[in-house]
């Protein structure tokens, strides 16, 4: 049964045709994959279905009835729910408060009853959440469950998930997949947006590919494959060489990159560029987050930090990049004691930092691209002379970066907030790589990137490594860590569970360590058995 029909949906933004006569059918009981490069128009299309944006043209029917969806309230009334890429929860509220928000009139709240109901719905779909917890204390994965629960509690028949797995650990992604399948069995309709092709093939029943705002391909999932999807996403305008490369990437990135990944450029006498000694750091709530970590990263080496989100990775990175105070222990950058540096000293020592939260830390959304790419260098030659800004130089620099890093934007003067998520990330990466750094600290650098862009960033990281740069790479994406790292340190509860060399690191061992088993204990077990 068709639940939603979108016909001829067109949406224009200044300088961009985000959706161009899009037709989309959604059936009850299916998980529908929505694919496309960064900026293809996926989020826009779904925002229209959810009533956040109004289409310029086109028609929507829900269960056969033509409807106009003016606002999320209308969408909810039609049984449509959406979980955004950037969660829309009220952090200081409890789970229950977030879920009942906007429901049941204006009168008194019966908290106990609400909690009971929520627990019931949660049980029905196998979603594990504590209804009394404050959202700001929850991990990203749990927050996502709260969002899903919130839609289901509202009686959503159609649930849109915008890149739900981008922020999840493999385990969390797996449990999400199970939940989605279960919902499909209950005849719900699910729209699943993702850049991870394997996942899409595994989880969905049908897929639609958007390119430059247009639907270019729709198929039953079982009738398609990675290569086809990748080709449809990228389109035919590319040179055959590029296409071959991207297709290869989509098929087996490892193989393509093997030429560079194989051997680390680091030799024993390569300088030790990042060093951390017995580091202790506290989190925003002033609780210990990093508890005695030590490691070194040499020039020409990538050290991966694997771990389930929220085990102190962010605090570790922020302490090294000097945006967070150090409780005790020491940090050395390029041989210098950086423990008492400021963020500015870190930057001045030719060190780059890609934060995992571009919204909060990386970009200023209402600054245009040229301002954003020069945030760290505007007061240096040639962008400033005698304390005055050199606007032509700044704009030239921005144009150049935008072109080199393939940021899809109408020009250097549009606000960063108007870019699609993936292109925002590219902008951050471009900025950080632009100054030929000696040290790179990257926290989830490919978050939200499409396959082409992610591969590009990976390639860049390896190029930098080849230049002799020391790279600290934090990621909850195991594939990424395994693909790029020379060594992998697994973090659990603020401590190191041990360091694995390339080759030693297999997903299973990593999984155990990420769950809190130290490597030494594993080795002991091995010997015993």
């Amino acid at each position, binding site marked *: 049964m068709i639940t939603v029909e979108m016909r001829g949906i067109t949406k224009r933004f200044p300088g961009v045709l985000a959706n161009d006569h899009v037709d989309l059918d959604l059936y009850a009981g299916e998980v529908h994959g929505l694919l496309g490069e960064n900026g293809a128009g996926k989020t826009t299309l779904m925002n229209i279905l959810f009533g956040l944006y109004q289409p310029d043209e086109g028609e929507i029917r829900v269960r056969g009835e033509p409807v106009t969806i003016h606002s999320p309230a209308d969408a909810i009334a039609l049984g449509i729910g959406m979980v955004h890429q950037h969660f829309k929860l009220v952090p200081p509220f409890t789970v229950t408060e977030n879920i009942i928000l906007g429901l049941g009139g204006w009168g008194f709240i019966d908290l106990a009853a609400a909690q009971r109901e929520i627990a019931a719905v949660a049980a029905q779909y196998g979603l594990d959440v504590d209804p009394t917890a404050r959202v700001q204390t929850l991990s990203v994965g749990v927050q996502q469950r709260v969002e899903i629960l919130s839609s289901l509690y509202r009686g959503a028949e159609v649930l849109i998930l915008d890149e739900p797995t981008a922020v999840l650990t493999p385990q969390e992604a797996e449990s999400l997949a199970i939940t989605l399948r279960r919902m499909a069995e209950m005849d719900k309709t699910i729209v699943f947006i993702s850049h991870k092709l394997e996942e899409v093939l595994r989880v969905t029943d049908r897929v639609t590919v958007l390119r430059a705002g247009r639907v270019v391909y729709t198929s039953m999932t079982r009738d398609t494959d990675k290569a086809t999807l990748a080709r449809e996403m990228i389109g035919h305008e590319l040179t055959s060489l590029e296409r071959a490369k991207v297709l290869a990437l989509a098929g087996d990135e490892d193989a393509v990159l093997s030429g560079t990944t194989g051997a680390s450029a680091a030799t024993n006498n390569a300088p030790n560029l990042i060093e951390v000694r017995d580091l202790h750091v506290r989190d925003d709530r002033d609780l210990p987050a990093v508890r005695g970590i030590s490691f070194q990263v040499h020039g020409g080496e990538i050290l991966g930090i694997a771990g389930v989100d929220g085990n102190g990775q962010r605090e570790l990175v922020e302490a090294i*990049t000097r*945006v967070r105070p150090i409780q005790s222990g020491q940090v050395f950058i390029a041989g210098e004691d950086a423990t008492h540096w*400021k*963020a*500015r*000293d*870190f*930057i*001045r020592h030719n060190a780059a*930092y890609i*934060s995992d939260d571009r919204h*909060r*830390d*990386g*970009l*200023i959304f*209402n*600054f*245009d691209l*040229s*301002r954003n790419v020069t*945030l*760290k260098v*505007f*007061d240096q030659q040639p962008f*400033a002379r005698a*304390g*005055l*800004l050199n*606007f032509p130089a*700044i*704009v030239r620099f*921005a144009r150049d970066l935008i072109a080199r890093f393939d940021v899809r934007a109408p020009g*250097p*003067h549009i*606000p960063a907030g108007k870019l699609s998520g993936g292109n925002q990330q590219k902008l951050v990466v471009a900025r950080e790589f632009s100054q030929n750094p000696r040290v790179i600290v990257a926290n989830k650098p490919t978050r939200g990137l499409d396959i082409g862009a992610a591969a590009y960033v990976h390639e860049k990281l390896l190029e930098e490594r080849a230049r002799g740069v020391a790279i600290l790479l934090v990621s909850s994406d195991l594939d990424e860590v395994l693909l790029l790292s020379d060594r992998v340190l697994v973090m659990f509860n603020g401590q190191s569970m041990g360091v694995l060399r390339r080759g030693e690191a297999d997903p299973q061992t990593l999984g155990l360590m990420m769950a809190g088993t130290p490597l030494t204990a594993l080795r002991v077990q091995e010997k015993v058995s």
Partner: protein
Amino acid sequence: MSTTTADTAGTGTAERAPLPWRTLWDNVVQAALSLVLALVVGGALLLVSGRDPIAAYRSLYYGAFGTTDRFTETLVKATPLLLVAVSVSICFRAQVWNIGAEGQMILGAIFSTWVALHVKGLPPLLHLVLAFLAGALGGLLWSLIAGVLKAYLQANEVITTSMLNYIAVYLLAYLVRGPMMDPQGFNFPQSPLIPEELELPRLIARTRLNVAFLVALAAVLLALVFWRSTWGRRTEIVGASRRVAAHVGLNVPRTILLATALSGALTGIAGWGEIFGLHFRLIEEITRGFGTLGIVVALLGGLNPIGMTIAAFFFAALVVGGNAMERNANVPFALVDVIQGCVILLVLSRAYLFKRSSS
């Protein structure tokens, strides 16, 4: 946490070089339309209260522009408005909602008058410069109180600066009745006159237009340069996001302090200008309304130096003309306030009200 307030008034954040002329033009057109609307509303009120709107507005226009004398009065009034606007625009772009211009002006007046009265034996020009610097220092220190409380103790500046305004008013009241009172003044609440040679030269004889006006124009130039400078850029980044600013290596508290200090100094100079250009002695109530109107001017000018110059001039004309209207067309004083309030609210809503006309 900071009090962040987005301004819709077209603060250029694009790297299209310093001045977004197109936005500026839109602003001017929209502002003109809202002014017309405000005058229509005011005209209706005039009719209701039994006055002839045409005659009233004629006297408003005459009062602001009718003769050279009237016109210079408009410029005289524009002087402190412009200085205050430029000053607060720096804070506002740093998202520091400093509404303490009133108090900072008072402190500027106090400091500079003190130097004029108590420092002896300097050549006049040097003495005047010293008084000028003292005025800047007075404003700077007063604004730094709020700046320090904000930068290091996260005390909301809207509150601290408005409280500091009251405190400054009473401090001035105390000084002109106590330590700084004119001993020959029959107990009147005022200081002695400053030495005559320190009075600012008039630009046009027999009018009140004086050198302070040029200082205000210089402040506009300074602002134009400031926003092209790295210091200005740092200020803007800190204003846009404290967190990003910290991540890109800026010293956020220091930038906030510098912005409040610069802003306070400019406002202090406005206080200096009022004393040395117009009153020549410390009296009470010298600053009434400038704080508020200066803020209004800053935002109506889109925090843009050129925009603010236009807005300052416009508001000065409105005030000077409004007063004339009150005197000569027998319009109740309260109606002038009402029209002013309407102008502010309508001009603020201009982007919404006249969306279509400019796109």
